């Protein structure tokens, strides 16, 4: 395993904490009349980083991701930022790659989460 993977696994809780952190930013007026909370480019970048790590299909990384409960967190983000299509597309690709590439633990965790909800 390379040192990048080691470091990314070590820093996984930090990335999760960054995604869980509340967004204090002011809400933006939406075209449909309501107000939206902006996602921010940095959160989107962390989600993208997760996608690249999942694409490596490294068991240690996938295991760590499921341990940290990233799938549930991603689904929560879809609820919070319900109008941000950039985030939805990224999360869709993550799940798609996880399920189609046979990452059982990741798929199971998602299914279990939905069943529990």
């Amino acid at each position, binding site marked *: *395993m390379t040192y*990048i993977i080691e470091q990314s696994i070590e820093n996984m809780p930090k990335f999760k904490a960054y995604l869980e952190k509340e967004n204090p930013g002011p809400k933006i007026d939406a075209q449909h009349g309501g107000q939206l909370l902006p996602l921010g*480019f*940095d959160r989107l970048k*962390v989600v993208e980083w997760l996608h690249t790590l999942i*694409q*490596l299909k490294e068991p240690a990384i996938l295991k760590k991701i499921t341990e940290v409960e990233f799938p549930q967190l991603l689904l929560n983000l879809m609820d919070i930022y319900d109008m941000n299509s950039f985030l939805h597309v990224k999360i869709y690709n993550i799940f798609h790659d996880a399920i189609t590439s046979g990452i059982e633990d990741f798929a199971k965790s998602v299914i279990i989460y939905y069943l529990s909800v």
Partner: protein
Amino acid sequence: MKEEEEKAKATISTEHEEKAIGSDSQTGQEEVAPKTAEASEPAVTTSLAASVPEAVPPVAPKDESKEPEKKLLEEKKEQPATAPVQVEANKEEKKVEEAKPEEKKIEQVKVEEKKAEEPKVEEKKVEEKKIEEVKKVEEVVKEVAKTESKPEEVKKIEEVVVKAEEKKVEEPKAEEKKIEEVKTEVKTEEKKPEEPAEKKETAVVVAESKETKTEEPEMKKEEVNDKDEDDDEDDVEVNRDKDEDVVIGAEETKNQSPRRFGLLEKLLSLLGAGVKEVNPVLAGYFSKVMMVIIEKRKADLMTYIFNYKEHIQNVVKHSYNKSIAEVLGKILSNEDKFTTGMSDEDFRAEKCEILNSMIDRMDATNTIEDITNNCFILCNLVDTKQQIKYFMEPENIRRIFTIGTSGHPMSLRASLTFFMTVIRTKTSGSSNPVAEFNLGPPGTYYF
């Protein structure tokens, strides 16, 4: 008895008066003058006094008080006869006497004028003295200036003398050199028949070197499969020329850098140590010029920049500007070792120093422009062979992760972007991307 005594006294007084008058006429005019009514006519009284003793009879003592008046009246009556000549003389004397006071007055006026002029003269003298003093001071100042300037003049003279002495010393050396050159020419003329053989040998050596150089690019072709064969051949030819230039250039730059790279130094002074912030407009022109120089005279530029580290550090310092960041990326993307005339290790160490400073500039303490531009350069350098070895070292990976997770959102974004580019470039087109990383234990080069 009393009457007799009075008569005797009267006679005595008359006799005394007569003596007195006679003595007056003999002695002078001054004593008679006060007695006369007109003090201004003493001459007339004297003449009259001289004539009086004969004409005047003796007078009784009772009438003595009235006698002088009578005398005066008589004198006045007698005056017209003797006056005309005397009056004229008197008038002349008066005129003379009147003229004298005028002269006196004139003299007095003159004296007064002189007195009045004296202070002016004194003032003039004082002014003249002051002017003289000022002149003296100026002269002293000039002398001091001359004494101060003297050392420079003396130095110049000394320099001229030293140069003349040096010339004298050099002249025999030059003559010796000329003699040696003549000798060498004579020797070469003697050896000329042997030259063709040497030329042949050199030609063979050049041909062999060309063959070896053509083999090197073939090795490069194997390593880099993306490039076409035609492009590679062209590149090889260009590199061959640059190889020759650089080997010469590296030696020349150490000796002739001040003259040869004067304009380049001026250009790079735009990013001098004293410049806090670069003008973005000028930076755009700077980058354009530098890009052209890199394309046309890559070898010279690289030798100069890597021999004078201050310039490259200045470029890194001003990497917040996008134009200068592009120049920096262009300089660092050059992998040709020939450009610097350095050994591989030295060249790699130089680049590592620059990359270290660039990673430091991705820290949260720097501006957003610094972070994004340095991240952009590092991401572009990932493709190159030497840089990826540097980036895969555990220390550098840890550093970039710590910078990313320090809390600054921009640093996090930059570090994640960098790692994503690293992973994507190395896993693209491979069925087992993780296997690409499993090339050895941590702490070694993985690619």
